[in-house]
């Protein structure tokens, strides 16, 4: 199958947005307000932390906040020299920082970062572990969620692949991103 026709291509998978389970967006935003807009989205790899952080952005912008996005990951483990100093100087009380991958920072770098961003209206991070900021939400996956996402991407065909979904979910230990990548590979072999 051509890459552009693969239903699990990056474009399509990125189009799948976060599904809030036990609360509405209004309730989540109220919880965030009560936490002083300083909170963490916690969860393992491939559980939707980044997606949720992205989906929060328009909600926060509609409340009048100005959004600053920051990202660290396994390939980029630190910011360029001087970047944070410049950022801290320019932060205002309308700024909310959305920081994806905060666990990449060392303990001391994190403390400096927290101190430097005090002036901002908010700081929301994603992290694999609890502890850096109060937990706003813990992202969790299930084989049912993977099936739901498969249905969104391949429609009724997902039902026929029900058994495979369970197997993939187990094999990737709940990491939906990796499970969907494997689905891409399977489809790429089809004509």
């Amino acid at each position, binding site marked *: *199958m*051509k*890459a*552009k026709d*693969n239903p699990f*291509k*990056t*474009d399509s998978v990125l189009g799948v947005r976060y599904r809030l389970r036990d609360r509405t967006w209004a309730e989540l935003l109220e919880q965030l307000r009560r936490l002083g807009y300083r909170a963490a989205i916690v969860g393992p790899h491939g559980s939707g932390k980044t997606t949720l952080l992205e989906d929060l952005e328009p909600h926060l912008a509609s409340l009048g906040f100005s959004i600053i996005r920051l990202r660290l990951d396994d390939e980029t483990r630190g910011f360029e020299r001087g970047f944070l100093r410049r950022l801290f100087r320019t932060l205002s009380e309308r700024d909310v920082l959305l920081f994806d991958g905060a666990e990449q920072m060392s303990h001391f770098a994190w403390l400096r970062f927290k101190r430097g961003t005090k002036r901002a209206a908010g700081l929301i991070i994603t992290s694999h572990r609890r502890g850096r900021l109060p937990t706003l939400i813990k992202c969790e996956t299930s084989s049912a969620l993977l099936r739901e996402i498969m249905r969104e991407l391949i429609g009724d065909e997902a039902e026929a692949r029900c058994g495979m979904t369970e197997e993939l979910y187990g094999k990737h230990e709940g990491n939906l991103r990796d499970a969907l*990548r494997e689905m*891409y*590979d399977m489809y*790429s*072999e089809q004509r």
Partner: protein
Amino acid sequence: MSQLEIRTRDDKVRFLPGEELAGQVSWATESPPGLIELRLFWRTQGKGTKDVKIVESVMFDNPRRQETHDFRFQLPDGPYSFSGKLISLIWALELVITSTDETERLDILVSPTDTEIMLYGSRQAFPASGT
């Protein structure tokens, strides 16, 4: 809801590298649209990170709510439109109202063979040397 349209001359969608790509764009919007841009670009789709390159663009400043404009681009020599299992490269024209991000896109093909280059063809595509 705005209406955006891109039409190439003779509705042609297959082009040779270096060929001229001409046509007309038109729009009808409910309110003054601000800035409108026509982009000639390619993008990749597939398993990995997406790549996009805007090769050329035309800005329509202070457009009225309803207008039609001719456009003309010279296509570059490459890259060609291609597809494999891991990545496809797709050329397109895109008309965008930048203030609202409303978009109309027309995919086109840029290839010296008039068809998309396939990275996993049949064995016959590469005859053995000396035959």
